[in-house]
């Protein structure tokens, strides 16, 4: 994966994003620190990365739109540097995956983002847990229809979740 350029992120990001080793890190005006990382995916069809996001000290987070705006700036820089697919699996901590999935998609479903990107979400019910998975990709990819068709076909095996 190509390394992101923090100067590009920080052109529009409300919080200053820096590399800390291989992690992207930012601290909010409320003193919360978030770490962001991208991890290789192992699907057999296309190159993709899992987006990881962590509130590293686990402090209670007040509602803060700037966190979402910062994350969007990071994701936009990811797509500038990498013409790949981004996947997100919601944290199962405290059983609030569904709320996190909706929040994440609300963050990324703004009008400006919808012009450039396509998103999909699916609720996958396993035997002992339910996972919420989101897919983000650039709308202008030549293979976007095939990627979405495959995601939709695989999602159809489970209970679909509306974005």
């Amino acid at each position, binding site marked *: 994966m190509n390394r992101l350029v923090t100067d590009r992120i920080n052109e529009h990001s409300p919080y200053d994003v820096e590399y800390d080793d291989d*992690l992207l890190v930012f601290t909010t005006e409320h003193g919360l*620190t978030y*770490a962001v*990382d991208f*991890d290789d*995916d*192992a*699907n*057999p*069809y296309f190159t993709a990365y*899992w987006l*990881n996001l*962590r509130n*590293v*000290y*686990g402090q209670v987070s007040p509602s803060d739109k700037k966190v979402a705006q910062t994350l969007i700036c990071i994701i936009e820089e990811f797509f500038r540097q990498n013409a790949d697919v981004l*996947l997100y*699996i919601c*944290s*199962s901590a405290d059983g609030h995956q569904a709320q996190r999935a909706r929040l994440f998609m609300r963050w990324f479903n703004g009008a400006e983002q919808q012009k450039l990107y*396509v998103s999909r979400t699916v609720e*996958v019910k*396993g035997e002992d847990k339910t*996972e919420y*998975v989101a897919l983000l990709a650039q*709308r202008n990819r030549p293979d*976007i*229809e*095939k990627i*979405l*068709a*495959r995601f*939709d*076909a*695989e999602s159809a*095996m*489970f209970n679909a979740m509306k974005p």
Partner: protein
Amino acid sequence: METKTLDCPVRTKEEILSWLNAARQRKEAWEKKVDAKFAERLRSKKAAAESGYYDLEWV
């Protein structure tokens, strides 16, 4: 965006669950590693503050 009829293979339900399980395990391992890294940093800062020692510039 509308999608067209699929003309390529898809994974089975079991393959998808296995793929997601692996992704979940990697994510949880990453979270533990990040938590440990920042917890250690916090511990070091706290220990330095409690020791009463601060670096002094040579004059």
